[in-house]
């Protein structure tokens, strides 16, 4: 890539940092230059977030209809999956899966709720009272 071809498309980096890219100067030697972003990868990142938002909205709807517990909703919202949530809580994955059931969730002890609240970085009340 030539230095003059380095894209400068505003992206999420603006106002925070610019990224180093390796480009050829006019003598054909390698040098580094700063870029504020590239539309192609911005689109890829935007799509990924759009997908996340869709999954979170879907999860909220399922909590509302009583299909699934808030644990599942907050797992999606905090971009986690089962192995990751298991890492943060110390619970087995199948235990967490059980806690996805609203009936099981209702009977969870305060200390387990506290563990989830800490993993999600929210208060116990937020976790208990979330209803979609």
């Amino acid at each position: 890539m030539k230095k003059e071809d380095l894209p400068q498309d505003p992206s999420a980096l603006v106002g925070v940092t610019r990224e180093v890219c390796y480009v050829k100067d006019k003598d054909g030697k390698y040098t580094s230059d700063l870029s504020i972003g590239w539309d192609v990868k911005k689109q890829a990142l935007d799509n990924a977030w759009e997908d996340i938002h869709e999954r979170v909205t879907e999860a909220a709807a399922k909590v509302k209809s009583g299909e699934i517990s808030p644990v599942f909703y907050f797992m999606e919202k905090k971009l986690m999956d089962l192995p990751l949530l298991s890492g943060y809580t110390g619970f087995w994955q199948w235990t967490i899966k059980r806690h996805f059931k609203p009936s099981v969730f209702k009977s969870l002890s305060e200390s387990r709720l506290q563990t989830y609240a800490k993993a999600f970085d929210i208060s116990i009340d937020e976790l208990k009272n979330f209803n979609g």
Partner: protein
Amino acid sequence: MDKLILPYNHIQTAHCENGVATGLLKHHGLEFMTEPLMFGLGSGIFYIHIPFLMVNGGPAVSYRSMPGWIFSRASKLLGIKVNRRKFNSEKEAYDYLNKQIQLGNPVGCQVGVYNLPYFPAEYRFHFNAHNLVVYGKENGNYLVSDPVMETVTTLTEEDMLKVRFAKGPLAPKGHVYYPENVKQVSKEHLQKAIYKAIHRSAFDMLSIPGPICGVDGINYTARQIRKWREKLGPRKAGLYMGQIVRMQEEIGTGGGGFRFLYAAFLEQASDITGNQKLLTLSDEFTKAGDLWRASAINMGRIFKGRLNEQKDFLESADMLDNIAAIERAAFKELRKIKM
């Protein structure tokens, strides 16, 4: 410890691990170190497509070697020891970092980016192999030189513990590291190291058995891409393509899936060794990098709209096969190269 600022020069680099390693070696007197040289000496260039493993709901592809390997491999070649510590207890990890600062030793830290407050929100995923240098403490905050940032920044004690003890794949466990007994490197020593590192990369890209590593891995991804649309539906297949582009082009790669960085290394390697062949082969990696960029643009057309056709996927797959052929030929030349 109210205020303690160690004399560390912040450097900005494309990739965080290169940046921390380069910065720390410069700090210990190896002034000639550059990011491309570190990347090349550490045999950072790679390709792997891990089947069945999902990362953020997409395919797990990587354009570089395992986190931590670049610094370890480069140091080994230069006769430097990297002192690494991981911790089970947060308290111990906290004390150890403070002690290193008090001893006047700037150190590298492995962190998760999800809770890094100075990162753009859109980039804060649960990625645990980010690296930064801690070079002091002021008003209870750590002074931080993060190589992907243009300037230095700070972290509170609480945030530092959070990011050092992020959980999940590649969990840092408070990982702190720094180089030990750094000696000056003679020109002959450096030349030898460069050849060894190049041969190492050629091995990684050509000779690891199985279909998923090195240039074979690129062909593997191409074969998968041909099946994705039918198997996953147009929308999800599009998201998968987006994931590949992000792994390839996002901040940290220097563009073109680290291929430009490797081309820059070969150019410097040619300077240091006087071997013209390396300069010619540098051009091959520039070509590969340009083709990776072209492939990203092509994939971008697929995930931009939700309308896409099978022939777009076939075209992308063909482009990857073409790139694999170019890299295969270039590494076969590099494998043969002699001092």
